Each structure stands twice: as C-alpha cells, then as structure tokens.
C-alpha cells in the first residue's frame, strides 16, 4: 500500500518512526537529578514559590520510595535515570501559528506518518515537542465558549487559582514513586478546562513526541470538565530510537464534575528502548461519565493502568485498552476502577496482542467500598498470541466490601489459528496481510471507538508490525 511505502521510503527498519532531526535546545540541564536541578527547572519556568515547594517535597518523596517490585522488570532503570536529562526547553516562546513553527520541527511532525490528518486538525491542535508546547492554537469557537486549552505552564501562569485548586488533588505526589518523580520535575503537558454545560464536538488534540536523546519526558496534564460539560481529548505520540534507554513518566489528572462526560484517548507508540511508566486517573463525580481509551505500542516496558475513582452516586467509568507487545517488549497494562458511591458502574475491556517474544500482561483492580450499594463492574480481557514464543498473563485484583455489588470478570486467550490463516490466504491475502487482518478484527471493538484518522494510523502500525511476524 502506498501509505506503507511512504514510511518504508524513510529507509528505517525496526522502528519505523525512528528518525532524529537536529534541533538545539535553548536550555538543557545536566543529566541526573537533585534539588538543584529541580530549582533550575522552576526558575526557568518562572514559577510561583508554592510550586517550587511542592516540587522539592515531591523530590523527597521520590527519593524515599523504593522501586516497585511488581509489574515489569525495572532493574536497569536506576542507571537509566542517572543518564537522563530531566529538563530541556526547545524555544523561548510558545508558537501561535503554524507558519512560525521552525522548519526542522515541522519536518519532525510531517515524518510522524500522518501528515494529512495532522494538517487537517492543526487548527485545533496543541502539539508538544520535547518538553514544552511549541505549537498550540485554539479554535476561536472554544475561546468563545470559555474553554481553556493551554500548555500546563500557561495554565499555571494564567489561571493560578483554578490550577492550584486541582493540581495534585487527583494524583498526589505520594501516590507512587513515579508520580512523585513527575511531581518534582514535570514539564510540558496540557491544561484543560471545560466550563459548565459546554459541549465540544471536535476533540481537543495534543500530538507530541520526545525528540532528544536521554531526555526524560515528564509531561503533566490537568483537565477539569465542569458540571454537565462534554468533551474528548486525544493525545498520541511516537518517539525516535536511541541507543541508550529512555524514560517517559507522565501524570494525567482529570476531574469530571457532576453529570459531565469526558473521554481521554491516547495512542502511544514508543521506540522499543523506552520505559513508559504513566499514572493517569480520573475523579468521577455524581452522574458523570469518564472513558479512557488507551492504546500502547512499542516501548521496552510500559506500566500503565488508567483509573476511574467513582466518587459520586451513579458515576460511570470505562476503560478500553489495547496493548501490542512485539519482540522483547513487555506491556503491563490494564485499568483500575474504584467504586466509592452507590449505583456506580464501570467496565474494563482490555485487548492485548503478543508477537514474537513479546509479553502482554493484564493487571487490573476492581475495588468496591462498603456503602457503594448496587455498584456494578464488568471486566473483559482478551489476549491474542501470534507466535509460540509469545506470552500473556492476567492479574485481576478484585476487592469487594459491599454485599449488593455485582462484579464480573471474563478472560480469554486465543492464538492466531492455522485454519484462519489458510481461509484468508485462500482468498488471495499473503500471510502477513492475513495476520494483520486477524489482528485488526481482534481489536476492532476498540478501534471503532477511535476517530477515523487514529484508527487508520493504528491499523497501519499493526500492518507494519505484522510484516516481520511470518517466516
């Protein structure tokens, strides 16, 4: 297909988007982490005193917490962190219009593989390049409605009260070691506020990529969907290949106020030397509705469990996730739903694909507190194994302290069958095409929830991945 050709034309092998453009950061801290680095970050950003204090407190928490022993293998991570640059800033100013974006940065965006879709959505996109927003433009319609869609730095600067009221309330620094790390050194990310009753038809999109060797990416996003609002936020990113291990550890906090509806979509495709440890959580209040749609491809190890804390009566949380573990990769993903209030409902649908020596683990928590009367939760996880060497495992944790709650869990593991391959090949598809079609069918229930250009992108990535799976 021509779309594949374009990508092949880049002359890249293992990781199709693994190119590097030269861009000299304006400022870059030295590698490693201590209080001085944290002070430098805060000073460069011209942050208020309270934020610096928070950062320093978070650093102390980070240092006091041990490396997690569960999940994936983090034994080489300490070394990686010592090599990591914790902050870099590519440009002094936020760019407002596409024309102002420097050529080499544009080139990077173009080479990401979906330039057409990218251009189409530029009018409303916030894109992150390295640690900060380079390009960020907001549709006039949104401005008129009072919607805030800013870089996290601008959010802090321009909306200090709103920011301070919510920052760190969904995911406190003490939540886990990597949340603490992020709270100490965060840089870049989005700040979003949807006023009461405002409905947005067009998704808010942030496209970002990490583009500097050994640059840790600690994006921080804070979203507040106020009462009765409706919106959809989309984030997608790919990263270039490097010889040393890279590290990404984001924190995404979302507050969904009563009767609001919010969906957060991520497709991440990291290069396969990346540690990707992300904490994302939503507080879902009375009658509100939160959906996480999470796609994880690439990386060396991803540990990511989007969660919904169902705080108010009748709140609903949904987590749809797709994980793709290629050779040597470990996707440890899933979701958490915490039922605190009565009549809260949730569902987790997780689909994973393991190829070659890839390993996909589902790790999920469903907790129902005493008093969350008639809470209902359903978990479904399906794993597809491509090769004999592929691996999958399931770790469902279920804790129920409420008698009237109903919780269902269903797990399936399937292999790509020889009969399926033969059937498709007997209609003229070659083995890789047949495999890709089976995989696409497998993830279809989730892919159909994606906006078209993302579904196309996902399908294309899977086709590329399947090319190496036969033989």
């Amino acid at each position, binding site marked *: 297909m021509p779309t594949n050709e374009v990508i092949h034309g880049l002359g890249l092998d293992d990781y199709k988007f693994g190119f590097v453009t030269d861009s000299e950061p304006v400022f870059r801290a030295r590698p490693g982490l201590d209080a001085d680095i944290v002070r430098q970050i805060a000073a460069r950003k011209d942050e208020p005193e309270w934020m610096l204090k928070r950062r320093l407190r978070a650093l102390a928490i980070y240092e006091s917490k041990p490396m997690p022993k569960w999940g994936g293998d983090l034994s080489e991570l300490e070394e990686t962190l010592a090599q990591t640059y914790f902050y870099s800033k590519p440009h002094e100013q936020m760019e407002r219009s596409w024309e102002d974006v420097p050529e080499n940065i544009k080139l990077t965006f173009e080479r990401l593989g979906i330039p057409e879709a990218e251009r189409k959505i530029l009018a409303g996109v916030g894109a992150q390049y390295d640690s900060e927003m380079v390009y960020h433009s907001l549709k006039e319609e949104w401005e008129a409605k009072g919607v805030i869609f800013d870089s996290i730095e601008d959010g802090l600067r321009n909306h200090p009260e709103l920011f301070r009221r919510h920052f760190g309330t969904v995911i406190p620094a003490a939540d886990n070691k990597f949340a603490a790390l992020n709270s100490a050194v965060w840089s870049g990310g989005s700040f979003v506020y949807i006023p009461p009753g405002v409905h947005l038809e067009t998704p808010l999109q942030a496209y970002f990529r990490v583009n500097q060797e050994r640059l840790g990416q600690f994006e921080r996003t804070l979203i507040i969907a106020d009462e009765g609002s409706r919106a959809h936020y989309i984030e997608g990113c790919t990263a270039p290949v490097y010889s040393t291990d890279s590290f990404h550890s984001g924190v995404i906090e979302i507050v969904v106020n009563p009767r609001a509806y919010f969906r957060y979509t991520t497709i991440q495709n990291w290069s396969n030397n990346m540690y990707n440890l992300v904490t994302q959580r939503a507080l879902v209040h009375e009658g509100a509705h939160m959906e996480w749609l999470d796609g994880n491809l690439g990386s060396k190890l991803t540990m990511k469990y989007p969660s919904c804390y169902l705080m108010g009566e009748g709140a609903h949380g949904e987590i749809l996730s797709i994980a793709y573990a290629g050779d040597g990769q470990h996707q440890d993903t899933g979701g958490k739903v915490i039922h605190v209030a009565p009549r809260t409902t949730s569902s987790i649908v997780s689909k994973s694909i393991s190829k070659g020596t890839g390993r996909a683990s589902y790790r999920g928590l469903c907790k129902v507190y005493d008093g969350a009367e008639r809470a209902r939760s359903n978990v479904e996880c399906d794993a597809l194994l491509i090769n004999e060497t592929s691996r999958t495992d399931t770790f469902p944790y279920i804790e129920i302290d409420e008698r009237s709650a109903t919780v269902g869990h269903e797990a399936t593991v399937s292999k790509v069958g020889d009969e*399926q391959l*033969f059937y498709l*090949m*007997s*209609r*003229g598809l070659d083995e890789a095409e047949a495999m890709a*079609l089976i995989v696409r*069918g497998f993830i*279809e229930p989730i892919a159909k929830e994606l906006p078209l250009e993302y579904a196309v992108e996902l399908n294309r990535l899977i086709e590329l991945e399947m090319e190496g799976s036969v033989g």
Partner: protein
Amino acid sequence: MKKSPILAVRGLRASVAEAGVEILKGVELEIGAGEIHAIMGPNGSGKSTLAKVIAGHPGYEADGGHVRLRGENLLDLEPDERAQAGVFMAFQYPVEIPGVSIANFLRSALQARLEDGEELDLFDFQDLLTGCMGLLGMDPSFAQRAVNDGLSGGEKKQSEILQMAVLKPALAVLDETDSGLDIDALKVVAAGVNALREENPEMSVLLITHYQRILDHVQPDAVHVMVNGRIVESGGPEVALELEAQGYEEYRRTHAA
C-alpha cells in the same frame, strides 16, 4: 469436442502432514473450461481433502502426482498464489474471523491482487459488491456482518458464494455448499452459480455434494464417485441418480481400504 482442461489432477496422492496417514491414493480428474463436475462419495472418502489440497492447505502433503491449473503446477504455490492464479474454494466449514466484515475482507482480497502501489477504487468495489449481492438476492447489510462470526450455517454458505461471485475465479471448488441451505437458499445459490457462469462462461466448477438436489439446478457435465481416496467411477448426470437410488454399498464393497 472437448475443451482444453482448466484443471488436470494426475495420480495425486496426499497425506495428513503431521500424522502421515495417506488419504488421497491416486486421484485422476480433468475439468475443461466452463465445465461443471460433481464429486459424490461417502463420508470420509477424501472429497474435502482433495479440495484442500487443490487450494493448498498446509495441513496436507502431496506425496505424488500433480495438480495443474491451465498447465501451471499448483502444488508449488502458496495458497494465496493459487488464489491469484484463479482457484477458489468454498469451505465445507467456513472459518470465523471475528471483527472483520465481509466487505472489508473482500476489499482486502481484491486489493491483494493489485500491483504494489496500486489502490483499489472504492467506488468500483462498492458497485461490484452491490451487484453481486443483488445477483444473489442478498440484503446489502449482509456485507457488514463479520466473516462467518455469528452467521448461521446457511448464511455461512451464502457468504462463500458471495465471495466467489466477487472474486470471479477460473475454478471454483464448492465443498458441500448445498448442505445446510434451506430450499429457497439452495435455489438462490444455484441461480447465483448459473448467473456467474453466464457472465463468465469459462469458469469451471467442481461441486462436492451428497445430494442430487443441487444437481437439478446446476446441471453437471460429469459426475464422479470418490471412494477411499480414489475416483472410482465417472459418468454423466445419470451416475448421481443411480447413487440416489442405490447408495454407496456396491462401491464400498469393491473399493475397500
């Protein structure tokens, strides 16, 4: 006058790849362009195995003989290459591919025939699909159903015929496509096969069946009887009528394993 053969099967011996059990024990069969041949035979006699060996199922190994399509030895080709060469097999037990619609599947199959860099025209495809579905009296929404997943037994068979209609093979091997169809569906499928042949008089059909019924609608040029991995009798439509009356007892006795 006999037309030049589309399919020539000579001395074909084949076994189950893993077990090494021989199932086809020297099959001889020749089908001319535009001809319809029926194969009948008791359960387990090797009819489906013959169909799968023609289509290239990896679970079977050809141990001897050859299968030629327009002179080209199919046994050297992968299943997809055989499809590209013009072979189509309607499965006795169609396989479920969850999440893939019939329309998407057919589009991928047609796309796979094009040269690299060529893109299937979606409007042409839509016209072709709609036309074929009309021919088979199918509701257009049927193409949005998943490939065999959640389809009834009869619907699966109809979907196989739809695929044949869209892919327009040179040789269609229909393995018990008539089993499991209700009387009306059987007529529609038969009418579809006939209409396709009208459109493409060169298309040859190898029809595996247990019942005379479908042969009332699709007139065979020849009927073969397969017993224990061999074709033991060939003749005209009267062979099927005799079988209908007498069963396989006589053949079984004379061609025991």
